[in-house]
Each structure stands twice: as structure tokens, then as C-alpha cells.
């Protein structure tokens, strides 16, 4: 039995209102909503659904194709995992989280640019409220100001496009903008880019990230770094690889911004001493890479990067937030040997870090391979070189953290468990299980990339063009 995708938005939104009314049982409503959504997302009907009785393209429509299906599945599963890891932290925000989930599902599913704006704002407001958990109101305020400016810019770009094309429907927009000149498109596209860049953590708008994610806990960190940013990146992908496909001029501008984001993020992560700060800069870098891929039109590699980053950051941010709560610091030099008594969590964290670096046998390697292959097949050498240099830096800072967290001990002496910071448990049992499951997923999908690739992009789907080709190639050892 297949359901209408509207339910993915309507159920959490409705439950959010109910949770506001019945404050006493809001945590159960939260659990119910998230679980129902995580199950439902596998049983929604593909295709275009009109809302409100208007015919497409006059009304608002939801589009569930392979791309948005991958997006909503990822988002809802991640939201579930985040709740499982830190339910205690999440329960007081039940209505906010549910509304945010509705907003994210809406963002990914909608086929209308203004509708997208509304859902983005719902998501953003829920994110602002969640950020206040960091107890740094000035940072939340900073986030809100940046978000508001971004949304005004988005609206401005949108209305300029509307003025040119007379439509807000994505499909029609694609057709009509095809006739427009690049110079005309440049300003609106840049404005829209800036608007989406807030949640996607891309450069001109990434100023909030340090303040908000740097003070995140084991729940909010996961929400910002993997859930919200994945949703925003999927929207980015939808717009810049399908709706407003950038031509040469616009493309060069956007890709340059994205690559600068990548480089700046990696370099900043390299110099950071705080665990969460390293992770947040690494998230910015990964977002930059995904954005560059989307803007070039390499949808499948970009989706792989997004998924890899989301799962990796889920594990790492929840661990980092939890470490901060347990030990009162997240300066990784002061956390020497924290994994000594948390072996399972440590292994999951290690797998996540190695996967983000793109080490083989893990999902990240498959992602990295697709990224490189896409560019080199196209004949671009510059971007792969940048990506690989970034990977060296990334590997350097991750291995530094891993070594520190695993092996305490003075330089010149053997690593010694007695020198570790203590033996507090990082996660509860459910949290550990969730994290381990995520890590197992990373390993399994790395060992069976073909299956994983097909799950993300079924053959013949929207992503099929540059899709599973490389995984099949690996399978056959390159025999074509």
C-alpha cells in the first residue's frame, strides 16, 4: 500500500500542534511522529502530487522522484537516529523538532519555488529555536539575522525570476529560464544561492556555524550538522542541478564560491583545537564539495558526499557533544584516551572519521571515487587536485584527533591507559547501539558499493546518467 507524500509533511506538522497543546505527553508524541515518518517514508507514492485541487502547474505540487526520495529517506532516518541517540536532550523541543521535520520534508518534496521558501522558513525558525539550547543567545541571534537576510535575498532573487518567467513552478521555470541569457540569470541565481547557503553552510552565509555548532550538544549538533544541512543540500541540488541549471558563467561563479568554501573549511578545521570546531569546519568543507558537485551537474557523486557526510557527522557530532557534557571540555588535547573505556563508540567514531576522509572499504571511498571519476571523465583536473589536497589536510586533522582520543601517553613513552582522562561512558546503551549501527552501515555500504549505489539511485532514475556507472565499473574491475 502506497501513501500520499503529503502525509510526510502533514503528520509531523499536525503532531507538532498536538504536542503544543498536550505538553505532558509531548515526548511520546515526538517519538511517535518521528517513528511514523521514518517508516512511512518507505511507502510513499512516487510521482507528482497536486495539493489543493489546482491543476499542475497552477497549484502547488509535491514531486517525489529518485532524488527527493533519497533526500526524504535520509532526512527521516537521520532524524530518528538523532532522537534515539539523545532522546533526553530532544524531548523538550518536541513541537519544534516535529515542525522542523515537516519543513525539511516539504523543502525536499515541493515542486514550487515559493512553497520552498515557506518550508525553508519553517525549518529555519525551528533551527533558530533549537540553537538557543546552546545558551549563547548572541549566537542564536546572529544565526537569526543571517537567516533573515538570506531569506530576503532568496525572495528577491525569486521575484526577479518570476518577473522574467511568470511562473514559480520548478518544471516550468526550467523550461523558461532555458531561453534566458546568462547575464540576466546571474543576479537572481546568485541571490537564490545566498538564500539557500544559510542552512547549507556555504561560504558567504557560514558565519553562524561557528557560534551555533560550536556550542551544540549531542542532539542539536547532529540536527545542525547532518539533518538540516543535508536537507538544505538536497534543496541546493534540486535547484542548481535541475531547475536553474547554471550555464558556464553562472556555473563558474558558483563553483568557485563552493570550492573556496571547501578550502577555507579544511584549512580552518586543520587549525582548530576544539573537537566540535574541527567537525563543524569539516562540515562546511563537505558542504562546499557537495555544492560544487551539484552546480557542475554531478548529482550522483554529490548525493554520495551528502549521505557520507550526514552519517559521519551524525556519529561524530553526537560523540563530540556527549564528550563535552561528560568531561566539560571538547579541546581534544584534553580528551586524551577518552575512547579507552568507550571502545565501541570509539570504533564507530573512527569509522566515521575514516569514511569522511574517504578511506577504502568504507562508504566514503566510494563517494570520493565517484567525485574524482566524474571530474576526470569530464576532463577537469583542477578540481580533483583541490579535492585531493583537501583530503590530505582532512586526513591529517582527523588522524590527529583519533590518535589523541585513542592513545593517551607522553611523547617518548608507550601509550598508557592510566593517562587517559577518565572512564566516563559517552553514550547510553541505546545511543551506543545507534552509533554502532550507523558505523556498520558505513562499512557494509563500503564493501557492497554496488548495492548501496542502487539504493541511493535506482537505475533509470533521475540520477541514472552519471549514476551507478562507476560502481559497476568497480565491480568488473574496469572492463567495459
Amino acid at each position, binding site marked *: 500500500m502506497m501513501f500520499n507524500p503529503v502525509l510526510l509533511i502533514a503528520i509531523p506538522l499536525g503532531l507538532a500542534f498536538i504536542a503544543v497543546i498536550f505538553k505532558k505527553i509531548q515526548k511520546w508524541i515526538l517519538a511517535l511522529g518521528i517513528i511514523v515518518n521514518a517508516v512511512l517514508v518507505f511507502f510513499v507514492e512516487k510521482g507528482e502530487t497536486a495539493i489543493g485541487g489546482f491543476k499542475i502547474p497552477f497549484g502547488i505540487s509535491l514531486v517525489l522522484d529518485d532524488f527527493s526520495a533519497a533526500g526524504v529517506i535520509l532526512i527521516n532516518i537521520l532524524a530518528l537516529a538523532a532522537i534515539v541517540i539523545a532522546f533526553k536532550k530532544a524531548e523538550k523541543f518536541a513541537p519544534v523538532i516535529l515542525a522542523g521535520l515537516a519543513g525539511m520534508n516539504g523543502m525536499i518534496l515541493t515542486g514550487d519555488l515559493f512553497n520552498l521558501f515557506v518550508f525553508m522558513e519553517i525549518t529555519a525558525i525551528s533551527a533558530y529555536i533549537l540553537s538557543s539550547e546552546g545558551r549563547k543567545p548572541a549566537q542564536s541571534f546572529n544565526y537569526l539575522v543571517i537567516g533573515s537576510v538570506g531569506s530576503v535575498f532568496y525572495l528577491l532573487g525569486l521575484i526577479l525570476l518570476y518577473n522574467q518567467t511568470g511562473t514559480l513552478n520548478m518544471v516550468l521555470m526550467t523550461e523558461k529560464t532555458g531561453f534566458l541569457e546568462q547575464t540576466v540569470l546571474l543576479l537572481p541565481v546568485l541571490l537564490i544561492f545566498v538564500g539557500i547557503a544559510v542552512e547549507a553552510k556555504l561560504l*558567504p552565509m557560514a558565519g553562524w556555524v561557528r557560534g551555533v555548532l560550536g556550542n551544540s550538544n549531542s542532539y542539536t549538533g547532529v540536527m545542525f550538522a547532518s539533518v538540516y544541512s543535508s536537507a538544505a543540500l538536497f534543496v541546493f541540488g534540486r535547484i542548481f542541478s535541475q531547475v536553474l541549471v547554471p550555464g558556464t558563467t553562472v556555473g*563558474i561563479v558558483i563553483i568557485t564560491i563552493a570550492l573556496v568554501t571547501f578550502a577555507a573549511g579544511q584549512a580552518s578545521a*586543520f587549525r582548530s583545537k576544539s573537537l566540535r570546531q574541527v567537525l563543524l569546519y569539516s562540515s562546511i568543507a563537505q558542504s562546499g564539495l557537495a555544492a560544487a558537485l551539484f552546480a557542475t551537474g554531478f548529482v550522483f557523486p554529490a548525493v554520495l558526499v551528502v549521505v557520507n557526510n550526514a552519517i559521519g557527522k551524525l556519529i561524530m557530532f553526537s560523540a563530540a557533544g556527549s564528550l563535552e557534557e561528560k568531561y566539560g571540555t571538547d579541546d581534544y588535547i584534553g580528551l586524551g584516551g577518552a575512547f579507552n573505556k568507550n571502545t565501541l563508540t570509539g570504533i564507530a567514531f573512527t569509522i566515521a572519521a575514516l569514511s569522511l576522509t574517504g578511506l577504502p572499504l568504507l562508504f566514503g571511498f566510494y563517494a570520493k571515487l565517484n567525485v574524482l571519476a566524474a571530474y576526470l571523465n569530464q576532463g577537469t583536473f583542477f578540481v580533483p587536485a583541490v579535492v585531493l589536497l583537501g583530503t590530505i589536510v582532512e586526513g*591529517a586533522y582527523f588522524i590527529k584527533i583519533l590518535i589523541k582520543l585513542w592513545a593517551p601517553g607522553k611523547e617518548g613513552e*608507550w601509550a598508557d591507559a592510566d593517562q587517559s582522562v577518565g572512564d566516563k561512558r559517552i553514550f547510553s546503551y541505546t545511543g551506543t547501539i545507534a552509533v554502532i549501527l550507523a558505523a556498520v552501515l558505513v562499512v557494509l555500504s563500503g564493501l557492497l558499493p554496488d548495492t548501496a549505489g542502487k539504493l541511493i539511485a535506482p537505475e533509470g532514475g533521475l540520477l541514472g546518467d552519471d549514476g551507478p556507472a562507476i560502481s559497476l565499473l568497480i565491480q568488473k574491475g574496469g572492463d567495459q
Partner: protein
Amino acid sequence: MNLNLIIIITTAVALVAYLVSKVNDKAGAAMTVVGSLFALIAVFLLRDSIGTEITLLYFNFNLTVTGWYFALVMLMAYSMTAFFNPFWMKKLIYPAGYNFLYLLSMAGTLGVFFAKDFITLFVFWETVVWSSAFIIQMGKSRQAAYVYYVISAIGSMATLFAIMFAYGTTGTFVINDAFGGLAAYPGRAIVIFVTFIAAGMAKIGIFPFHVWLPFAHGSAPHTFSPVLSGGLVKMGAFVALLSVTAFPAYKIFGGMASFRGIPLPIYFMMALGAISIVVGTLMAIKQEDAKKLLAYSSVANGGYILIGLLMLDQVGFAGGLMHIVNHAVASAAAFLSIAAVAYRTGTTKMSEMGGMIHRMPITYVVYLIAIISMAGIPPMGGFVSKWLIFQGLADKGLLFIAATAFFGSIGSFLYVFRPLSAVFLGQTFTRDLNKKEVGVFMLFPMVVLTLLSLLTGIFPNIFLRVVTEIQTSLGVLPVTLAENTIVTNNGFLDAFKVFIVFGFGFAIAFVLFIARRKSRRVELMDTYTSAEFIHTRELLHYSHSFYAPFERLYEKAPDTMKLYHKAAVKISEIGNFAEAIFFGIKPARTVLLVMGTVLIGIIAGGVLS
């Protein structure tokens, strides 16, 4: 038994060893012995199935004689060192993790040597890199694991670039096809050659990538240093080999400018190998720590191997291949004997030991024979392979490189005997008087390696026959072998006769030594100091700063490590800059940035279109 099964079983044993170690770490360590010996025997038996291909998951393997040869060398280092593992479990922070990673990295090396396509090669390669990085951090230095990983990553990423570039050019990942098809693109081929060989250079420790060896070899757990130096370094040699054979470097670069018949790109790499010989030798002379000294000697020997392999000719290439075995055996034995000493005394600093020959005579003999081989002195194997490399260089008239190789040989006399005299000879520290020789379980691998060292020296043709097979399979004219004699253009070598002559010399020296044993015994630190009181006790050790006058000649030489330091500082500076500019925590900054971005974007767009 096929290769898939070997890899799967060793991985499974690794997992079992992990679980067993959780209960009893010694039992887990014993599993590493079992697992590695099993792999050694199983791979040895693969000889009959050479030439077949096999697939596991998405990995494709191709059983070549080259891979078989390398795999045996590697597994020899792993299995012999494994005998030491049970005795070091107490010192390790994660015994279970160590045992697991030990076997996992071993399984990884198998995949590297038998890879048919690049994906397989790279996947297994990186598996080895990160699993060994996690082993190294358990040793004496965290910094070591970091440096090791970063340098390896530089090499690996360059190689990945080469792999993907070749794929983008020829459309295939199969090693021979992907590289074979590059002949039509000589411009790209240079880039691919240089970047592909980078991982190999980083692994062998060729200048300027050599900085990780003293760190990692010197500080890794004593039971892993032999594997690192004797085994893993040879993975780099394998990649270097691929870059002249699978990548038909001589064919592709044949039309280019060349120096004495060697195309310039290849000559450049050989020159780097020559520099490594010099740098490794000079640095080894300086060291005060026995393991660091041996690590630098690995740098120098890596240079020999690289030069030999890159010649890809009848004689020098055979020498390079032969030197892989010799150096693996000798350096594994040397590191193991130092580990055995460290097991008893708890240190590897030369100035803290002395006279161990009285306590650990067998270990002494093991070390002696190992360094004789390493220094390339007859009658050990190292002499045969270095002789072949010299012959190759002389044939081609590559004087500069031959000179450095010669320099390295002389230099190695200077440094390899220092641990010998400092650790084993002289008087025993009072502290160490009650120390005993290590147990049979630890002596066994050392003795086996020593016998192998002798075997390579006395009957090198046993190994050279395999080398000729490799040469034939790669389409190179094989080195000429007669009955126990190696024949080259410039002469011939009968290793057995050399052994007889040198053995006779040894015997005479030994008799003289026994006959005139009348030296006065004093306490080790009882040194004449001109009535000056020396506070630092280790300065009294006669082997401390042994070559100080010589070292002064090059003490001002630039340190390569500083280069990497500077690069890291630069990246941090860029990071600081980016944080200050882009990631400020005030809203006004971001608003300005947005306006700037839009403005610049529009201007750039206007300029571009």
C-alpha cells in the same frame, strides 16, 4: 587453497584474534603467529596457480610471479615478527586491537601484491596504511603515527589522482590496460608517472618523503618496527616496480630527452633514490637510538632498491629485486635483535647499554650477521644484490648514482657497527648483569632470519632463479646464472667461493681472538675525563657522539622535516585567515560578505561573459 580463501581466512583469524585477546591477550597474540604462518605457507603453495585470476567482492586479483615473490617477502617479515608478539602484550594499550590490526594489515598487503586493477590495489594499500598507523600510535610516539599517516596520505592521494587520471584517459581500471593505453598521451603520461610513483616513494622512504621512517620505525612498538622496515616498505618497492613495468615507462618516455639511455623522468626518480642513500647514510651516522639508526639505514637501502628497480635491465633490476629479499631479512633480523635487547633492558638508547654479548650471545650473532648483510659486506646476501646494482650502474655509466651508492656502502660501515659495539661489545652495565638471553620462542625467528641471510649470501641463485622468472614474465632479459655463479658483462660472482674465503678469514680472526684474550676489564663508564667531572652520565659512554667530528661537517644541513612543518604552519595560517574573514561570529560581518559576494559574483559574471 586459493587467494580469496587466504585473504578471508586471515581476516577471519584477525577477528577471532581480537575476540580471543579480550579474554587472554597472549592467546590472541599466538593467533597472530598461527595466522601469519598459515598465510606464509598458503601463499607459498600458490606457486602452482600463478597466472590465474580470481575475484572477491569487487576486488580482482591476478596471481603474478612478481606478486608472489613480494608477498612471500612480506609474509616472512610478518610471520617471523609475530613470534615476538606474545611477549609485548603487557606493554600495549590495546592488545586486542594490535593483534587484529596486525593480521588485517597483513591481509591488506596480499591484496596489494596480487591486485589486477587499481581499485583493488588502492583499497588494500590504504587499508594497510591506516591499520598500521593505528598500530604505530601504541608505541612510544603519537607524533610518529601522525607523521607516518600524513606522509603516506600525500603519496596515496597523488597515486589516487594518477589512477583516476589514467582511468579518465583510457577508461579502464585494469592496471596493465590503463597504463598500457597511455602511450598515445605522452604529456599526460608524465603527470601520471610522477604522481603514481609518489605513494611508492613515500612508502619506501625516498627523499623528500623519508621523514616518517625514523619517527615511525624508531617509535613503533618494537614488534612492529621489523614489519615496517622489513615488510611494509617493500610495498613501496612494488609500486615503483609497477610504475616502470605495468606503466611502460621506458616505452612511453623512450622518445624523450634522456641521460645515458635513461629517460629524464626516470632518471630524476633515480636521482632522488641516490639522494636518499646519501641522506639516509648521513643521518644514520648521527643517531643515538639503535632503532632510529636502523630506520635511517632503511632509507638508504630503499634508495638502492628504487635505483635497481628503475633500471629495468638485465643486471641492476635483478639486483634491486634481490635486495628486496636481502634487506627485508636483514632489517627484520636487526630490528628483532634490538627488540630482544629492549625486552631485557627496556631501552633502545645505545648509551644506556653495553656488553650485552656476554648476556645475549645468540642475539649478538643475529645482529652481527644482519648488519653484515645490510652493509653489503660479503659473504652475506646484501653483498650480492649491491654488487648486481653496481654492475648495472657501471654498465650504463651512471657515474653520479654509482658514486652515491658507493658512498652509501662506505657510510654503512660507519653506522651499522655502532650499535654492535655500543650495545653488544664493551663491558656490561652492572644493572644488566643478571639479564638472560631471550627464550626459545623469540630466538626461533631470529635464527631463521639469520639462516636466511646466510642462505641468500651463499646460494643467491636460489632466489635469483625466481628473479629471472620475474624478469622473463616482464619481458626483460633475465640475468645470466650458471651453476652457483652470476655472470654479468663485467665479470662474474661465485658467492660460495666468496663465502669460503671470508669464512676462512673469520675463522682466523676468531682463533686470534680466543688466543689473546687478555684485556683489562673496567666498568663501562670508567672513562678518562681529564679530571673533569661530567654530570650527564651518558656522555661517559664511549659510543656517545661517536662520529662527532664527522657529524660537524654536515650539522648545518637543512632538515626536511622543517619543510613539512612550514607547510603545516601555512595551512594553519590560511585557516586563521579564513576564520577571521569568513567565519566571524558577528552578524554584520556576514552581511558585508554576502553583499561582497553578490557584487563580486556579478562583476565576475560580467567579465566572463
